[in-house]
């Protein structure tokens, strides 16, 4: 592998991987969530690189055993993060780092069994999204839960919001969420309004293809991208209407995650079940259009000619389930029980 890629085998399949945000410095802590293991866990790693020594490995700092597969992990801030699992629960966790003691992961709130099947069996929570301290979780039971990081109770539940299982969710506004279901239906719910029906329903495509992930643009929330099981990336401008602005034929396998670069939202990162991790970047010439205030992702005509796609890593033989990007560093978590750090990703142009 190239010298800027660093792989570490961690003895568990990684379903989610996230940088711990560090607003002062470049992050060197990250969190992984495992799946399909006898005892799943959330782990905190430290990856302090060293210019002189190339043989550094991520160092396991703290471990938190968890029931079920970890289905999503998101940080609220530098210390607090939320995790969901296939056992139907959502947890608010805190990284406590007192001076001189190794950091610990502690559970602050445990919303146990917030997703259940009608017969009472626990049901996987498939995803959640966050907006400040608000958390919205969705599950195979087709229900939506509104939680808040400062409240142990479930604020609101919309039961049977969907006949099918809900796969992914994203906040559009403080009061509005977008969900994607098993049959490729996308629905906008007003979570503050009393009614439990969606305000709008539209389709990912004509063929009941299921979305695997939904992501907002970091500064323009109305710009939403979805990755689906057939490998396409669909982009909407939900200010306009629910017809996609662009559909990109991307990966050969399903698109597991999509991330905009937090500081350079014209840069996009995707990973797939067929083992690819790609970096999408506007071509130098077309970057000028950004100066006019135009968002490159909404450029309706021939967006494909304006984008360069780079593969960040040689194709892996197992699915890449998760990725995260911070500054010029990309992390991937994979089904070959390894995590990869890709350094020096060219985002600055």
């Amino acid at each position, binding site marked *: 592998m190239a010298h800027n890629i660093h792989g570490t085998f961690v003895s568990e399949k990684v379903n989610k991987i996230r940088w711990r945000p560090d607003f002062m410095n470049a992050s060197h802590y990250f969190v992984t969530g495992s799946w399909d293991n006898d005892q799943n866990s959330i782990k905190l790693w430290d990856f302090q690189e060293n210019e002189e020594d190339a043989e550094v490995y991520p160092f396991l700092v703290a471990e938190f055993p968890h029931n079920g597969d970890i289905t999503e992990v998101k940080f609220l801030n530098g210390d607090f993060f939320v995790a969901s699992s296939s056992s139907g629960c959502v947890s608010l966790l805190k990284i406590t780092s007192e001076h001189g003691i190794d950091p610990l992961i502690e559970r602050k709130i445990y919303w146990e069994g917030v997703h259940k099947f009608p017969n*009472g069996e626990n049901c996987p929570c498939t995803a959640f999204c966050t907006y400040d301290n608000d958390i919205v979780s969705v599950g195979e039971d087709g229900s939506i839960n509104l939680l808040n990081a400062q409240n142990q109770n479930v604020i609101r539940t919309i039961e049977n919001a969907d006949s099918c299982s809900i796969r992914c969710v994203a906040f559009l506004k403080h009061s509005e969420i977008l969900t994607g279901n098993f049959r490729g239906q996308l629905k906008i719910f007003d979570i503050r309004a009393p009614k439990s029906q969606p305000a709008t329903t539209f389709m990912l495509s004509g063929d009941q293809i299921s979305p695997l992930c939904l992501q907002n643009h970091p500064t323009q929330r109305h710009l939403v991208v979805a990755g689906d099981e057939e490998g396409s990336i669909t982009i909407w401008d939900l200010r306009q209407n629910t017809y996609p602005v662009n559909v990109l034929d991307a990966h050969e396998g399903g698109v597991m995650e999509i991330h905009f670069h937090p500081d350079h939202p014209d840069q996009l990162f995707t990973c797939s079940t067929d083992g690819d991790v790609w970096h999408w970047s506007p071509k130098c010439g077309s970057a000028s259009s950004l100066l006019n205030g135009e968002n490159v992702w909404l450029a309706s005509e021939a967006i494909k000619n304006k984008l360069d796609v780079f593969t960040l890593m040689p194709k892996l033989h197992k699915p890449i389930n998760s990725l995260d990007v911070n500054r010029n560093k990309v992390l991937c978590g994979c089904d070959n029980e390894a995590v990869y750090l890709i350094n020096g990703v060219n985002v600055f142009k």
Partner: protein
Amino acid sequence: MFEAQEINAEHKDLIHDVAYDFYGQRMATCSSDQYVKVWDQNSDGKWTLTSSWKAHSGSVWKVTWAHPEFGQVLATCSFDRTAAVWEEIVGETPGPGERGTRHWVRRTNLVDSRTSVTDVKFGPRTQGLQLATCSAEGIIRIYEAPDVLNLSQWTLQFEIQCKLPCSCLSWNPSLSKMHPLMLAVGSDDPNPANGVKVFIYVYSESCRKWTKMDAITNITDPVYDLSFSPNLGRSFHVLAIATKDVKIVNLPHVYDNPNSQNVITKLDAQIVAQFDDHESTVWRVCWNVTGTILASSGDDGCVRMFKMNYINSWKPIAVLRGDGSQVSNEGQRSSVSSTVGPQIQSASQTARYIKLGAISQPRDVPWH
């Protein structure tokens, strides 16, 4: 080296049969105490009892699972002359926060037999929901649920007279649509003068009938169990037979020719292995999921395992026997790693495994 987890089956008498579901996550047991019990493996690997009910008014001989495509379905057969089909219901409307309660409902009771029903087996998944039973009076019955989603309606499709008391039956599990349905039935009739004790029946789609094949002619000792191996796309079927020894028989493929009125009635079966390792009568034979290892149990009180190597020859690889004097606490350990987190389960949730060491350890596991 093996690890063992002991499950106290809570039956009041010997267990006659243990059956695992398609995924190996559920276990059903039956006994002379007339009860059937269902056990589930929790996420930590521990087996717990989830249902127990009095299923028959006599000893329950056999229990078997249907393919999960048909739901959670069991069939049992008993000395009380009946066979039954059971379906699990998980409480439809439990109270808030209550976990659904499970119970098994008798969907049908098959009462055609006038004597003890000695074996019951579901047919191959691709053929819908079929059930074969055999009985001490020597009749094989094949039932079908025409609507696979309605388990309370079964029709008796065929009654095959076998003339000798039947002890066991096995469906050929071939997944190929090319192969017609095939059944093997064994008889434990003790008199060698009564002739062959293994019967092979083949179903002809075009004639809509079961035909007895002239196949295995040289087994006249009583047969207590038989079992087809999972088919690995080989050019023959493999049948294991428990009689005075363990026999492994290869059977050639049969093709149903719809254009021909001449039904084939002869098969060239070949005994490819015989093991008298038990040095006594053999009661049971059982294949692993891929048909690579055969386990037999016999009157010597042992389970013996045989594996086929890459040039298709069979060799004994392991022996298991019981010995209560070997019980010790030494080597007991928890199966879960020693990482203790803030929310680890209580000890009772965790499976305990005992290490079983080999008492005689010749160095070779042979391969040719």
